[in-house]
C-alpha cells in the first residue's frame, strides 16, 4: 500500500476516534435541570397565597431490614419463589409498625403545627421582602365568591408530606427534617397555570433518631425550621421563574 494512502487512512482513523471521544464527553455533560414551565407573569402585583390539600407527618426510615434477611434466607430455597412477595409484604409491615410508632411519638408534640400555614407564611414573607409585589396576602382556605379583594394571581400551596427522613447511613443512621411541597400560580377567572413547582426540601442538620425522640422540643424546632425553608424555597423559585419573563 502506498505511504500516502496509509497516512490518509491513519488521519481518517484518528479523526473518527477523536469524534467518538468528543461524542462520549458530550454524553457526560450535564443536562440542564428541569425547570418549571415558566410563563411571563410580570404584571402580577397583588398576590394571594392559599393553603391547600392535606398534609401527612411521617418518619421515613428506608430500612433494609428485615427484608434483606428474608432475601438471604430465600436464596437458600430457590424453589420457594412464591415466598418473595410475602417477604416484601412482611418487610413493609414491620417497618410500617416501626415508623408508625416513631411518628406517633413525635406527632404528640407537633400536632398543633399547621404545616401549610408555616410554609405559606414563610413564602409570603420572602415575597414581600423582594419588593416586587404591592400586596402579598395569605389565606387558610379557598377565597369565597364574596371576597371583595381583587388579586392578580392566586398561588396554591400544598404540603403533602413532612416529617423526618433518613439521610445518612451509619451507626447510628442520621435523620433530617423534610417537607415535600408543591405550588402553582393561576390567574383568577382564567384558570391557566402560569407557574408550578414541586420541591423536596430537607433540613441541613442531621441527627440520630434518638435525638428527636428524647427531645421533643428540639424535634419541633427542626420541623418548623424545615417548613419555613420550604416556604422560602417556593418563593425563590417563583421569583426566579418570574424574572424569566422580564
Amino acid at each position, binding site marked *: 500500500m502506498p505511504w500516502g494512502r496509509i497516512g490518509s487512512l491513519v488521519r481518517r482513523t484518528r479523526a473518527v*476516534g477523536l469524534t467518538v471521544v468528543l461524542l462520549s464527553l458530550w454524553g457526560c455533560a*450535564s443536562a440542564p*435541570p428541569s425547570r418549571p414551565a415558566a410563563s411571563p407573569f410580570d404584571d402580577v402585583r397583588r398576590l394571594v397565597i392559599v393553603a391547600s390539600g392535606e398534609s401527612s407527618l411521617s418518619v421515613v426510615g428506608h430500612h433494609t431490614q428485615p427484608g434483606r434477611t428474608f432475601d438471604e434466607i430465600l436464596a437458600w430455597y430457590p424453589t420457594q419463589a412464591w415466598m418473595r412477595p410475602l417477604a416484601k409484604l412482611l418487610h413493609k409491615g414491620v417497618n410500617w409498625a416501626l415508623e408508625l410508632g416513631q411518628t406517633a411519638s413525635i406527632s404528640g408534640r407537633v400536632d398543633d403545627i399547621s404545616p401549610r400555614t408555616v410554609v405559606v407564611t414563610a413564602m409570603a414573607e420572602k415575597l414581600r421582602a423582594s419588593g416586587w409585589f404591592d400586596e402579598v396576602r395569605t389565606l387558610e382556605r379557598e377565597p369565597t365568591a364574596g371576597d371583595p379583594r381583587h388579586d392578580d394571581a392566586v398561588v396554591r400551596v400544598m404540603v403533602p408530606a413532612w416529617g423526618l427522613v*433518613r*439521610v445518612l*447511613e451509619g451507626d447510628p443512621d442520621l435523620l433530617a427534617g423534610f417537607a415535600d411541597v408543591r405550588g402553582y400560580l393561576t390567574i383568577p377567572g382564567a384558570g391557566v397555570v402560569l407557574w408550578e413547582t414541586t420541591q423536596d426540601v430537607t433540613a441541613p442538620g442531621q441527627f440520630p433518631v434518638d435525638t428527636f425522640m428524647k427531645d421533643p422540643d428540639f424535634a419541633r424546632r427542626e420541623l418548623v425550621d424545615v417548613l419555613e425553608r420550604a416556604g422560602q424555597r417556593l418563593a425563590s423559585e417563583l*421569583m426566579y421563574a418570574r424574572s424569566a419573563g422580564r
Partner: protein
Amino acid sequence: MSPRGLAPVGIVLALTLAGCGGTALDIRYPEQGVNPALLASVASRRVQISNVIDRRLETARVGIEPGDGGDIVTNRSVADIVHEALGLEMSKNGHVLVSDQPDLVLRPVVEGFSLDTVEGYQSVQYVGRVIIALTVVDGRTGDALLTRRYVGIRRREVDKPDKKQWREVLDTALARAMHDLATDPDLVAALGGSGLPSARPAT
C-alpha cells in the same frame, strides 16, 4: 493501519467511557438556565469573585460509591464549579466581572458539596448537598457588608441504584443554592450599595 496505531485512540476512548461510568461527574450550572432575577434590580456593579475556598472536610471526593467504596469525584474542582456558577449569575444579572478596581468583592467558601446514598430494601435514596458561604466586601474600603450561607439540598428516591441520578442530584442542589442566592433581598441590598449589614442572621 496497524493495531498499534489505533492503541492511543483506544486508550483515550476507554478512559473516557470509564469516566462516563459514573465516578467523574460533570457538574455545572447551565448558562441557558440562568435568569436575570432580583440581582438585576440594582445598577450594574464591577464585581470581583475571589478564589473559592474549599473548606470541606474531604476535598478529594464528593461521595463514595455504594458497594465497592470507590470515590465519586467531579471532573473539575468544586471550587471551579462554584466560581463559574457565581460568575454566570453575576454577569447574567448585568454586573461586570473584573479582576481589579472592583466595587464589590465576593468571597465564596464551599462548606459542603456531597452526594450521599441511603440504601433501602428495594429502593435507593440519593441526597445531594451544596453549601456556599458568601461574604460581600466593599471593594474600596475592604469592609465586609454581608455574610450569608446558601444551602441547596436535593433528595431523590428511586427503585434501583442508578448512577445517572448522581449528576442530577448534585446539579439540582447547586441550582437551588444559586437560585436562593439570586433571589436574596439582603444580597441585593449589599450589591446595591446600601452598605447596611444584613439584619438577618446567616442561615
